């Protein structure tokens, strides 16, 4: 008997429940079911991804030629400002929250999130904030100071739009904080009896690290933006040098959030990759604890590297050295993850389906972003390439080659669970191939452009850079085209795709131990851990399911106080007797 069969046998009651099919109206209402909210997040953010993508292609169209000839320079600045803001605050950050919403309660065997209404509130702040942001494009005075919005520039151009931009980002930040509280409480307090921290799937560890980071850093951005709003609206001079304010202080406050934001955007997808690779390699994850703790290490280190965005602005020499060293050290936990994923694949039986291909592309492409990140950490080299296309290349390798490929890997992996139907494999592979080609064509030449002397955020550039820019632009068009097979595939498969069954990948984590789509309240009885989340190939059940970890802090027993029926007898004990 394989491990998947063992786990399914132990959880057979849940697998015969009725799939929780919902009325379409539920998805447009203030619903408190975490699965509905998860889908609401994912669909909404994907729509914003398409809008942000259109903006990106407009930016690339302008840059196809060295002259400023496609849109006005003012509009060009607004386009890249909104492109960045949408992609960060309305796509990658909330998409991570969307997967966390759908998956966390299922993975830990809970019936819902700890605070279901708060969860719905967090989601319903996103559509109005997004519409607000996009409306700033049409008020005639659109924000055009970049997503970093550095004063004094942000105080003197596009003022109306800037005000709207601040309002919108504040709302999105609040939504993110509410989500993070929910994830933390759910993970700490609602794990099924028998699941200690060390029996949690790695996606849960990743969300633990991410949520802690959101809680610590986002309020600082909010404070910075509120002060900026005062400068803008009330004429105070916190950051305005003409009144004695200090623009560099804003940069500190901004980056204290916005560097951790990079980890907020990538850590959830490190978690996703740690789920997808072992399932499709049919092997246990290599170095479970190393991967789990490296997420925490990244989360902590991520808080003390922010000033590496300011090596050319206003910090003293020895502080530059401090931030250089902390930044370099982040490469170590990140490297641990990459090598562990390679170790997981080595000697496995790899199913090269769309989810796995996206995950492998993630590993292969992210490593480029990681390497250029170490280069950027070196102060003397950063002084040369700061604010150039080298940085643009680096950040897109991390956020597109990392986060976005991670999102697609997650969609192909969990689509059967979310919808109960399989995606078309052929079109999935077409999507993966086009995305891979498009992304490398768009972003690889940018490294050279930056080093040779092309600065970022410009509408006109030196004609000697035309050829490489044309390649980038055509790559961006390929990326646009690559989205269509996916959209059609997703919509068609959702309606007419073949039924998925409960556990099409033969996975071991608890979200697969229920029907597809899961029943309204997930598990009627708390699920049982007959086997660890990654025990592929063991071919035996655990001798006893530990009720709680020997370490009381890590254990999950009666402290699962927020569960629906905390006094229920422990199912883990039942499982032990069945042995």
């Amino acid at each position: 008997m394989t491990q998947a069969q063992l786990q399914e046998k132990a959880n057979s009651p849940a697998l015969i429940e009725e799939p929780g099919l919902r009325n379409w109206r539920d998805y447009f209402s203030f619903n408190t079911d975490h699965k509905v909210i998860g889908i609401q997040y994912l669909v909404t953010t994907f729509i914003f991804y398409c809008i942000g993508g259109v903006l990106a292609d407009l930016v690339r169209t302008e840059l196809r030629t060295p002259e400023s000839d496609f849109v006005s320079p003012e509009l060009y600045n607004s386009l890249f400002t909104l492109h960045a803001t949408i992609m960060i605050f309305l796509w990658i950050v909330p998409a991570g929250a969307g997967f966390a919403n759908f998956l966390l309660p299922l993975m830990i065997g809970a019936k819902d999130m700890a605070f279901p209404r708060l969860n719905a509130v967090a989601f319903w702040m996103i559509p109005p904030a997004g519409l607000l942001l996009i409306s700033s494009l049409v008020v005639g005075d659109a924000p055009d100071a970049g997503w970093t919005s550095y004063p004094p520039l942000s105080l003197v151009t596009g003022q109306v739009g800037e005000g709207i931009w601040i309002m919108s980002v504040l709302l999105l930040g609040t939504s993110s904080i509410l989500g993070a509280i929910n994830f933390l409480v759910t993970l700490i307090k609602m794990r099924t009896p028998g699941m200690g921290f060390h029996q949690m799937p790695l996606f849960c560890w990743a969300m633990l690290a991410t949520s802690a980071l959101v809680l610590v850093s986002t309020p600082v951005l909010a404070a910075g933006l509120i002060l900026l709003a005062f400068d803008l609206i009330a004429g105070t001079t916190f950051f305005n040098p003409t009144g004695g304010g200090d623009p560099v202080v804003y940069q500190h406050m901004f980056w204290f959030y916005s560097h951790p934001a990079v980890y907020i955007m990538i850590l959830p997808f490190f978690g996703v990759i740690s789920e997808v690779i072992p399932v499709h390699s049919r092997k246990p994850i290599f170095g479970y604890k190393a991967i789990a703790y490296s997420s925490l290490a990244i989360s902590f280190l991520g808080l003390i590297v922010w000033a590496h965005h300011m090596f050319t602005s206003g910090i003293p020499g020895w502080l530059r050295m401090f931030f250089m060293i902390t930044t370099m050290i982040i490469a170590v936990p990140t490297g641990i993850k990459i090598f562990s994923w390679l170790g997981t694949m080595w000697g496995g039986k790899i199913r090269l389906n769309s989810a796995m291909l996206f995950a492998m592309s993630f590993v292969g492409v992210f490593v480029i972003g990681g390497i250029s990140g170490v280069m950027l950490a070196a102060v003397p080299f950063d002084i040369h390439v700061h604010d150039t296309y080298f940085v643009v290349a680096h950040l897109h390798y991390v956020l597109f080659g990392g986060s976005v490929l991670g999102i697609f890997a997650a969609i192909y992996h969990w689509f059967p669970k979310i919808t109960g139907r399989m995606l078309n494999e052929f079109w999935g592979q077409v999507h993966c191939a086009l995305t891979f080609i498009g992304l490398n064509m768009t972003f690889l030449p940018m490294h050279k452009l930056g080093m040779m002397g092309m600065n970022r955020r410009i509408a006109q550039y030196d004609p000697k850079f035309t050829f490489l820019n044309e390649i980038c632009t055509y790559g961006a068009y390929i990326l646009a085209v690559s989205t269509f097979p996916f959209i059609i595939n997703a919509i068609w498969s959702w309606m007419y795709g073949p039924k998925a069954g409960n556990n099409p990948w033969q996975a071991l984590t608890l979200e697969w131990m229920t029907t597809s789509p899961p029943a309204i309240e997930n598990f009627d009885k708390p699920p049982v851990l007959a086997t660890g989340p990654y025990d592929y190939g063991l071919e035996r059940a655990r001798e006893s399911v530990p009720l709680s970890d020997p370490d009381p802090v890590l254990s999950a027993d009666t402290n699962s106080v927020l569960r629906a029926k905390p006094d229920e007898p422990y199912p883990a004990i039942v499982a032990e007797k069945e042995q």
Partner: protein
Amino acid sequence: MKIPSSIWTLLIGILLTLVSLWYGQNHGLLPTAASDEATLVDGLFNAMMTVSIGIFLLVEGILIYSAFKYRRRAGDNADGLPVHGNVPLEILWTAVPAIIVIGISIYSFDVYNEMGGFDPHAMHSSPATPQAMKMPGTAIAATLNDTPLTTEPNLNQEKSDEAMQDPATAAVRNADQIPQKQNAPGVGIVSPTLGSTPENQGKAPNLVVNVTALQYAWIFTYPDTGVTSGELHVPIGHEVEMNMTANDVIHAFWVPEFRLKQDVIPGRQTEISFTPSKAGEYTLICAELCGPYHGAMRTQVVVETQDAFDQWIKEQLVASTEDLKQAVAANPAELSPSEFLAHYTTEMGIHPEILHQIHK
């Protein structure tokens, strides 16, 4: 005959090393190096590139090899080997990257020092004193807090006043309208600098240029001679010091061939020193978003022999004396900034409309 896997590993390792070493020196990704600092930065980059290519090829190689060698064969539904980890291997791949990044950090530290990043004689950076280092949070406070912590002189203000002594600089700067940042004790730095290289520290620089940035132009004033220019001329082989500030928003001074960049911030005096090493004409680029015409904010940098430089200064002096004769009738204090700047900016080819927009 079957070749043992240890031989294969060795051969692949040697090949990987050779390819990395070759590519690290022959990547062709950087423009000409035209300053002493650029040569240092390029050495650092080549070293990083060598290591990077090795890591890149290793990871991609394993990934592609696994995809072929370990792909699931049709009909095989069994699981793989239950390997949960390997502690020595995990220690190895934690330790090796740690050693690599520490090595790169030390190399970067050295290059940064060679470039003058720790120059104690640079105008603002009185080095962190032992007492100051003991005070918790002093260093961060110095960058975050603008309340004067002591009655020490405001070096930033002094630097600004010194530059404003030069009439040509005073004519293009609005330092009187922007309060200058106050320094904190001990740390003393509100403005980052790249000072003199270690061998030049303590000596007076060969040439001082005051740089003023405004939307969307660079203005260079030479206080020794009173020359004002829209393009930067520097003699080859001698250290030059740029004293920079901005009149409106943040700009950044960047010459790719010098590998040097420094933000130019209103209310702060930033400083950068370098030694041009190769004659030629390069482009000075504003690297910090400063408005819609940011992409057009660029000018020429001319690195030339001392003789050619002296000749150029002489020509500029003749030109500016003529300007002064014309300007003598009007009192600069009574003119609006755009009127005052008009003849400088037309010389530099800036549209009067843009200027009007800035000052409206």
